[in-house]
């Protein structure tokens, strides 16, 4: 290292606090506009890719955005429910393959996605270990869930109550992990997948208890024609096993049971258009949305806001540059004595210029590296960050 560079480095190292503040200011000046742009562009790309892969979505007539965010990214408040019958009707039309979704519940912070095996084929999801869910009460977990909770096939995960004070609500259901999905880099990595009927059990629409036919008098209060009245001593199951799965049943017509939405995958554009037409008719209680269009509208707004934000940040950066220039000039002024001494000892003008320049270069180089590292980190979590912001 040349003498001037060494002196420059020693000066910055000695005045650590000042150097750190300068590096932090320059880092933010570079990082903020760059990260904002990258965050929006990268995450928009990731979000639209998933939306583009999902041709049509049917849900209750409410916020389209909420419907898309909860059904595709499992990230928003659950929209109003639709009935399972909607799924059956779409299947019956023959215009599209229907995939039911119920995303109302979660397990230890990870969304529980009630669906059927078609979902995995549709999303191209593959198993990393174990097998697909076969029994009621079994689940398949995403790669991030397995890593975060440190569980795998053979372990179990318990559904979380909707609120802490939901005393009259559903019991937590212990779900056995049948398999773990390979990482896909999508929201599926963060989900717990179960059969849609399992979500109904979580909701309390289906349940399992000891066989009442063989129950003793201590449990049965009365027996009538087709009805048996039991007391609180009746054993309710909070885990579905191969031994008790037959005891689980649903009361009422399952076609009226709730879903969040239905993904509709028409074989071609014509069938898709015909299906869309059905939901434009008057009196239909559901809406059919094209996720790509819904997200496109949202991102258009995001991009507009982003342009204003970036403009503001660039203005702020210019102000920071002015302040930093002032700091360097003042510092140079304060060090006139030192520079005069160096000149008297024999230092050339080039040496002094290199010394001053090296300090500036060191500060900017450190800031660039730091800004690059931060931007890289932001890029890794771009989609999750934007989703969190959108659903805040």
């Amino acid at each position, binding site marked *: 290292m040349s*003498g001037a560079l060494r002196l420059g480095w*020693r000066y910055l190292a000695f005045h650590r606090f000042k150097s750190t503040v300068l590096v932090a200011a320059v880092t933010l000046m570079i990082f903020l506009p760059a990260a904002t742009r990258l965050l929006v562009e990268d995450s928009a790309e990731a979000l639209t890719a998933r939306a583009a892969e999902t041709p049509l979505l049917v849900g209750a007539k409410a916020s389209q955005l909420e419907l898309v965010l909860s059904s595709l990214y499992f990230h928003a408040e659950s929209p109003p429910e639709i009935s399972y019958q909607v799924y059956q009707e779409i299947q019956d039309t023959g215009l599209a393959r229907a995939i039911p979704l119920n995303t109302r519940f979660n397990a230890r912070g990870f969304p529980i996605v009630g669906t059927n095996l078609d979902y995995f084929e549709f999303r191209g999801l593959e198993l990393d270990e174990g097998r697909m869910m076969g029994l009621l009460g079994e689940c398949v977990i995403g790669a991030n869930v397995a890593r975060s909770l440190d569980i795998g096939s053979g372990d179990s995960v318990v559904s979380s109550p909707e609120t802490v004070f939901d005393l009259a609500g559903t019991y937590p259901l212990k779900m056995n992990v049948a398999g773990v999905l390979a990482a896909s880099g999508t929201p599926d990595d963060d989900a717990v997948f179960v059969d849609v009927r399992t979500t109904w059990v979580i909701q309390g629409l289906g349940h399992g208890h000891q066989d009442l036919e063989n129950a003793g008098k201590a449990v049965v209060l009365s027996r009538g024609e087709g009805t048996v009245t039991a007391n609180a001593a009746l054993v309710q199951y909070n885990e579905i096993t191969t031994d008790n799965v037959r005891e689980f049943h649903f009361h009422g017509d399952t076609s009226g049971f709730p879903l969040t939405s239905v993904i509709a995958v028409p074989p071609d554009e014509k069938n898709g258009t015909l299906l869309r037409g059905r939901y434009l008719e008057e009196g239909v209680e559901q809406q059919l949305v094209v996720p790509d269009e819904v997200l496109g509208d949202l991102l258009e707004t995001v991009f507009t806001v982003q342009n204003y934000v970036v403009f503001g940040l660039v203005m702020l950066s210019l102000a920071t540059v002015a302040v930093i220039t002032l700091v360097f000039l003042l510092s140079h002024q304060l060090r006139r004595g*030192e520079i005069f*001494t160096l000149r008297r000892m*024999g230092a050339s003008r080039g*040496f002094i210029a290199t010394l001053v320049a090296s300090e500036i270069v060191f500060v900017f180089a450190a800031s660039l590296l730091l800004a690059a590292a931060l931007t890289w980190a932001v890029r890794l979590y771009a989609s999750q960050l934007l989703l969190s912001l959108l659903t805040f």
Partner: protein
Amino acid sequence: MSAITINGLEFSYAGERGFSMRVSSLEIAQSDRIAITGPSGSGKTTLLNLLAGTLLPAAGEIRIGDTCINRLSDTDRRRFRINQIGQVFQAFELLDYLSVEENILLPRLIDPAQSASGVGRERATELLATVGLADKAAYFPASLSHGERQRVAVCRAMFNRPQLLLADEPTGNLDQANKQNVVDILVEQALSHGSTLLMVTHDRSLLASFARVIDFSELTAGGVST
């Protein structure tokens, strides 16, 4: 051959200061120890700067050994100054962000030719030992007393074993005890390296340490005007 030879030196500051100085002749022998005294503002520091080559005369010649310093190119004059002239200043002029050892090595950092040479830490250690600061190599100037700082400045001036050692009121910021100590060190260092010592001072109590005392007024008699 003389250590310093000045002939027909004329110098004046441009602009409003209106200072001019003339030294018709001065000769100082090799390894001599000279004290220069005189009233403030008479031009003593200017003479040292002319000898160091940081100022250039309007006329005349200044020879350090057999080199006419005012005829050298800028680059050669700088290099000559780094290698052949050691300077000690009144306010020490140590860099606060360098350790004691690094301050002594400063001439090497400034001169690209020396940066590549092997001379360095051993020489600094050796110099620090001679001034009683061997254990302070890693200290920063702010943690040293004034007397210690000036001793470090002397080490820095002596780093390249200069043929000429210029000291401009080096005891001006020191208490009485440290004044004599620093002068003793300067003289001792100059003697041990065979350097010629030229020191500007107002303190008459220190003159006994020098072989010769030059009254600046007499040196420039009829030649200095302000």
